[in-house]
């Protein structure tokens, strides 16, 4: 990689999203975000309104049919999508910022870095769902437990990537050049090292969102996540499983949304990853 082909990071990300893969991912995630955002318009009755009959087959406008209490499954799925998107949309950036700060602290102070690395190793030792269950045990199952679980689950990856990125970039020639030219240390850090060192972190945000959605749905499926009557895609699958033999769409509908969301985010992270590693 020569200096000539390196554009400014921001335009590189935009270009990555304009590749076929990035475009498909962005479109998928965009449509799902819009659907979640406009859930009150698309389903004005709300997620908890009980209709005429329970476990009715799909028909307009309740395309996925109704659940055991006669509620529109599609409406609940849209509101569930809202829960999931809000959760990862808030938790993953928080995780990224905290993780990056930990990585930065580790980069600036070697002893502290080793100590933080050991702490993150302990977090990493917990399989994702065990971590989620432990946090749900302390905070009580619900939105906040999921939020904290997603933040903590992401920390080791963000911390490690940020520190590794900083260490690599600090060795690069352009940094030495800036030092020789007498550029102040903070300016080198903010203007030169950080923008490049954060590339892997940006990619990891998309990866972390997929992980966060899976963590939410896994915990909710076993009943330790979002509690009824609040909807989330995982919570819908939890109740849907019981009526799977009669109401296929109760599981298929939320599962489909979950798949599309995860696939879209994976495509975006792949596209970003390719742009960064070019």
């Amino acid at each position: 990689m020569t200096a000539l082909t390196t554009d400014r990071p921001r335009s590189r990300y935009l270009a990555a999203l304009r590749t076929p893969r990035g475009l498909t991912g962005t479109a998928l995630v965009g449509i799902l975000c819009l659907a979640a955002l406009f859930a009150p318009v698309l389903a004005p009755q709300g997620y908890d309104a009980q209709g005429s009959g329970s476990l009715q087959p799909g028909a307009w406008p309740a395309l996925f049919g109704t659940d055991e209490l006669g509620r529109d499954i599609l409406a609940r799925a849209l509101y569930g999508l809202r829960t999931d998107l809000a959760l990862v949309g808030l938790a993953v950036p928080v995780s990224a910022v905290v993780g990056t700060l930990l990585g930065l602290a580790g980069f600036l102070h070697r002893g502290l870095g080793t100590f933080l690395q050991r702490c993150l190793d302990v977090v990493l030792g917990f399989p994702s769902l065990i971590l989620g269950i432990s946090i749900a045990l302390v905070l009580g199952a619900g939105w906040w437990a999921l939020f904290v679980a997603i933040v903590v689950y992401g920390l080791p990856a963000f911390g490690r990537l940020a520190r590794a990125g900083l260490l690599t970039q600090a060795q690069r020639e352009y940094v030495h050049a800036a030092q020789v030219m007498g550029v102040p240390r903070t300016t080198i850090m903010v203007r030169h090292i950080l923008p490049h060192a954060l590339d892997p972190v940006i990619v990891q945000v998309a990866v972390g969102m997929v992980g966060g959605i899976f963590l939410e749905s896994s915990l909710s499926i076993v009943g330790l996540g979002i509690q009824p009557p609040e909807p989330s895609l995982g919570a819908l699958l939890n109740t849907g499983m019981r009526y799977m033999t009669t109401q296929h769409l109760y599981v298929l509908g939320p599962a489909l949304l979950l798949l599309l969301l995860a696939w879209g985010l994976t495509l975006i992270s792949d596209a970003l990853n390719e742009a960064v590693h070019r």
Partner: protein
Amino acid sequence: MLTFLLRRLPSLAGVLLASSVIAFALPRLAPGDPAVTIAGPDAPPEAVAAVRDALGLDQSLPSQYLNWLGGVLTGDLGASFTTGRPVAELLADRAASTVELAVVAALLMSLLGIGLGVLGGNRRSPAVRAAVDGVSSALLAAPPFLTGLLLVLALGIAFPVLPAGGEVSLLDDPVIGIQYLIMPAVALALPQAAAIGRLVQTEMRRNRGEEFVDLATAKGLSPAQVTRRHVLRTSLGTGAVAIGLRLGELLAGAIVVEAVFARNGLGTLAVTSMASRDYLVVQVLVLLAVAVAAVIQILTELVLAWLDPRVRLGAS
């Protein structure tokens, strides 16, 4: 090899010690008095006092921790609060189901993962490569429980060829048992296999550009020999590491897959004891999960050291 193992032991002990502290702290961090939570909200004061006494909650925290840790190390795990049975017995009852699932899924995962990687890393057929890329990216977007649910809908309900849930031990009746195991094991294995496949594939493509491959070709080895002896062998280290890393996630995935397929394994035990706040059981399960993941990681590093002399020699 022994020195390599010895060098890794302190960090293993560190992680285990830290997670034992965390597991011990969990019920004490939860809001409210653990004794009241365990005895129930309407329990008479004597019952609360009995629980407090049984847990040793009136002692200082360090001595409580040491008592508990001592119990864990000597195999005395205490008794479950909801059923009154010894925790060790509960675990032993459920372990077989989870071990069967995990072993079958791990085998499937390794075979499919390496298989996908080799197919995708083979440069001779672009069509195969594109197909493998598509399949693995679809599998990556579907976590075990989703694959499981879709499998149940397809093969358990729409075309009922396999049992949709429940279990029969492989030891009791291998033929029936395997029918109950196929869907959960496949569901658990597929996403992890895709992740392994991707890593192996990238590694194989990278190794193909190495000079030792050019040398092997120049020596007159057939393409198949070059692939087998030089490209595949050097890429297997990555495969082994990927399998080790994925085994931990596979165990975590087992918790949800057991719920989806109504299997009575350790995962279901973790969920039910968590829901009923059966702390002694949860604590041990958390510690067990971390310990298993840590041991798997060490084993992975041993395999890597055995496959790759650079790792082995660098360590001693």
